[in-house]
């Protein structure tokens, strides 16, 4: 099992979700984040004060996948999150020792295959 952590542009979230769903990756958790990297800094002005915004809004995705799914997931992410401009973000693949589905107690692969109800 792996946990894939991707940092992407918020305006790309829509495309990324679509690409993941098409790649049959249906379980994920997102968090709003802010990033700093090589992007151009934004300058803002509040009355007399000028500030440089070092942080840019990003979205973070946490996706638990079984090992065979790692490559398709990463590929889907890379394809859909890319604009080519600096600031597209990163993908981290972390090792996971155990995944548990809270509802059933199922572990690992069983835990990350969603049961669709809708």
């Amino acid at each position: 099992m792996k946990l894939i952590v991707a940092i992407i542009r918020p305006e790309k979230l829509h495309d990324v979700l679509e690409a993941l769903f098409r790649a049959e990756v249906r379980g994920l958790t997102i968090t709003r984040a802010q990033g700093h990297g090589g992007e151009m800094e934004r300058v803002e002005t509040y009355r007399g004060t000028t500030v440089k915004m070092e942080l840019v809004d990003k979205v973070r995705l946490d996706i638990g996948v079984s090992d065979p799914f790692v490559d398709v997931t990463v590929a889907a992410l890379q394809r859909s999150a890319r604009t080519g401009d600096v600031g597209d973000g990163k993908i981290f693949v972390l090792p996971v020792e155990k995944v548990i589905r809270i509802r059933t107690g199922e572990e690992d692969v069983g835990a990350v295959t969603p049961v669709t109800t809708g």
Partner: protein
Amino acid sequence: MSLLLPLAPTWSLAAAVSPADTAWMLVATALVLLMTPALAFFYGGLVRAKNVLNTMMMSVAAMAAVGIAWALVGYSLAFAPGGALVGGLDHLFLRGVGLDAKGTLPHLLFMAYQATFAIITAALISGAVVERIRFGPYLAFITAWSVVVYAPVAHWVWGGGWLAKLGALDFAGGTVVHVNAAAAALVAALIVGPRRDYGRQAQLPHNIPFVVLGAGLLWFGWFGFNAGSALAANGIAALAFTNTLLAPATTLLVWMLLDQLRSKRTTAVGAATGVVVGLVAITPAAGYIGPLSALLLGGFAALPSYAAILLRSRSALDDSLDVVAAHGIGGTTGALLTGVLAQAVWGGTDGALFGAPRQLLWQAIGVAAAALYSAGASFALLKLIGKLVPLRPAARVEGMGLDLQEHGEEAYTTGEGAILVIPEEALPERAPAGLPLPAPAEGAF
């Protein structure tokens, strides 16, 4: 001084000014001015957080640019003695507009009251082009529009122009304000084009309480708009006031029912929209129809606007905040129903239902004329401005939101990750107090 002197007034306080009417119209004018910040919230809540300041500034800036243009030029074109199509230049730069009576009001107060109408009308247009038009061209457009379109159309109806002569009824501006602005909004939405993600991605209101606040303050201000249009504290004002209370109430009720029927949910955005549609629809009729008719008119007016919003949102027309559906369709419904429900006994002339079917025709002519002129002139103005400067920002800017690029601000910040920029330029004249900061201790004295 040479500029100011020739304008020095020469009147004495006319006996004809009514203190009571003045008292009411002072308040009515303030109420109508409040509608513009109210609109800033109504519109601002409906857009995404990254564009809320831009959207609000589109209303706020109208208070500056259109207000000044009105005082200097627009008022004269609308209300100075003139021809059938446009007023004269007698009141250019407020010449001859002083404290003597115009009707029963100090002339300046009448001018100020009308100024607030010009401002809100121009600001209404912004709803069709939010989230994607550059701020400068927008402001140039609505300012020019207020002079070139709003002032003449106001003259047609209220300044003694051809629609007044024809007998078209427009108590407080169903045609002059709402149809007029909506026609400009439609053209602007078409010329500017849809938002780049329109129809592909959901564009949801970022703060619905703000929408409710805007609608609440609009309703409050609209009493000045409609009941103030009686220009006196009299029975007609009371009638217009009551109708402005009752008509939106039925529009709101019907709107909630339609929402319920369609989606089993009575949305708050829908309720706020319904209130505004009801207010728009009663505007031309407010002082001409009875209160029961107002209840009917309000209820009926929900239907076409509700349908129009459904259609629009399925179409390629990105009239983003539904100016056409709410103000164009709502204003047209109101103007036509005025021709049906007006009753001489309540202060208007009789409408179609009371023996004068021809009134309906005058109403339709009024709507059509205002819509066509406004659309044509808006087209010309926007094309002209578009030739001089680009109307739209780059795709990247539109993606990031206009607040950042056009205004250099974010609406909601925590300040995290914000680094103070120490200005390099020295400030010689204030050097001692200047930087670097000598971190002053508490109790510096």
